[in-house]
């Protein structure tokens, strides 16, 4: 598992079927959510952005833990491929967080009348974005890239411990200072006709995350080992 040639072959085989599945699930979920699911009682059709917003947010949060777990594995067992996984996951997670924030703002404008609200979840997502960007910036700043990977692993582990604390504290902060003008009524139980496409899109986004991370890892391996014989043979064969 820890050897680049093995991983390259394994990931090549996985990507071959993961790519069509991801595209298929994304298209299916998008079509179902955007076209087939019924319009919402209160929000009409503008709620449909939920099919991008929620999966992006869920996978962004899970992605941080994937990154931290990979960092921990590389720190404890000194497995280089775990380093590569951590570095591959960081930009994907950061972009997904940004997508969640932007789609949330787009959703917020017609629903609440404002682009941004300092709500607990939104603020926590913003801090998550900062944490991701911090890990990426730290890697770029170090000269010795082996030490850089270990530094990023330490930082992402510290962030992992912090994320529940940050979320809870922002939650309490928000509930204390809740502005009276913006009513955040509790979420009504989501109807199954809207829930199923949402679950499908979440699955599709997970597949997308796995696909992108694998592709990133392959790209990094191809660059790092571009002189190596095994890589030249594998690439030329295909």
């Amino acid at each position, binding site marked *: 598992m820890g050897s680049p040639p093995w991983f390259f072959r394994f990931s090549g085989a996985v990507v071959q079927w993961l790519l069509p599945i991801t595209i298929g699930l994304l298209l299916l979920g998008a079509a179902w959510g955007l076209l087939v699911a019924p319009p919402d009682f209160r929000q009409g059709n503008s709620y449909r952005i939920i099919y991008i917003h929620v999966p992006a947010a869920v996978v962004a949060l899970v992605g941080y833990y994937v990154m931290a777990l990979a960092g921990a594995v590389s720190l404890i067992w000194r497995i280089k491929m775990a380093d590569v996984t951590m570095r591959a996951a960081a930009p994907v997670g950061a972009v997904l967080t940004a997508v969640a924030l932007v789609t949330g703002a787009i959703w917020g404008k017609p629903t609440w009348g404002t682009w941004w609200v300092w709500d607990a979840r939104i603020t926590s997502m913003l801090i998550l974005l900062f*944490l991701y*960007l*911090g890990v990426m910036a730290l890697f770029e700043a170090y000269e*010795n890239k082996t030490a*850089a990977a270990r530094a990023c692993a330490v*930082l992402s582990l*510290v962030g992992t411990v*912090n994320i529940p604390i*940050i979320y809870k504290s922002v939650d*309490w902060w928000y509930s204390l200072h809740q502005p009276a003008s913006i009513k955040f009524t509790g979420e009504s139980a989501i109807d199954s006709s809207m829930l199923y496409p949402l679950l499908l899109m979440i699955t599709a986004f997970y597949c997308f995350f796995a696909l992108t991370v694998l592709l990133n890892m392959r790209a990094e391996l191809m660059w790092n080992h571009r002189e190596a014989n095994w890589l030249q043979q594998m690439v030329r064969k295909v």
Partner: protein
Amino acid sequence: MFADIPLLSLREAFSRQFRRHLKALMGSPADMANPLLFYSMVVTLFPLGLGPDPERLSAIAPGLLWVVALLSSLMVSSKLFDSDYEDGSLEQLAIAPYPLSILLMGEIAAHWLATGFLLAAVSPLFGIMLGLPAAGLGVLFYSLMLGTICLTLIGAMGSALTVSIRRGGLLMSLLIIPLNVPVLIFGTTAVSEAVIGGNPQTWLTLLSGLAMGSLALVPIAISAALRVSLDN
């Protein structure tokens, strides 16, 4: 030949580091005064920027005093390990036969006494200047005392991660600010609650939980980060 040098107890190793750094810090009062001056000047900027209306100032006073304390703490922490890194004493600490986290705690404890503790002691004065009601002043002091423990520890971790990077101070601030958010929230809420006559105990307890947790866990991260930096 070196085998007959007796190993110090952990307590002795810690207190030697602590006393050495405390003496060094006390020896240059200018260095200790700078963060306090920074604090006072930035606090002064806000009335200048927002207008002298006493009601508005006292409304924003808890958050303002805390945010400026956070910024001062960031500014001070960014240079925490710089001199030790430059002259090689960090490497000596890393290969010493004592746990690196204990040795670092001596240094960080001295640093906290000279910066965070002083900041907490001075803050009620600025609270009065901003019109913070008397009920909030004591809680401001306690919350900053506990909060600066967390801020100093987390700042030391950020400094440890970036000490080997040129101009790492700004990057360190970017890394550390998200991690300081819970401390900020608990601290300001404690003071706000005290001001409106509510119960700040819950928030002070949460703050002390954060402080104790940081004392237990963050030194491990700091020593791991320092070892990584020494490899750079």
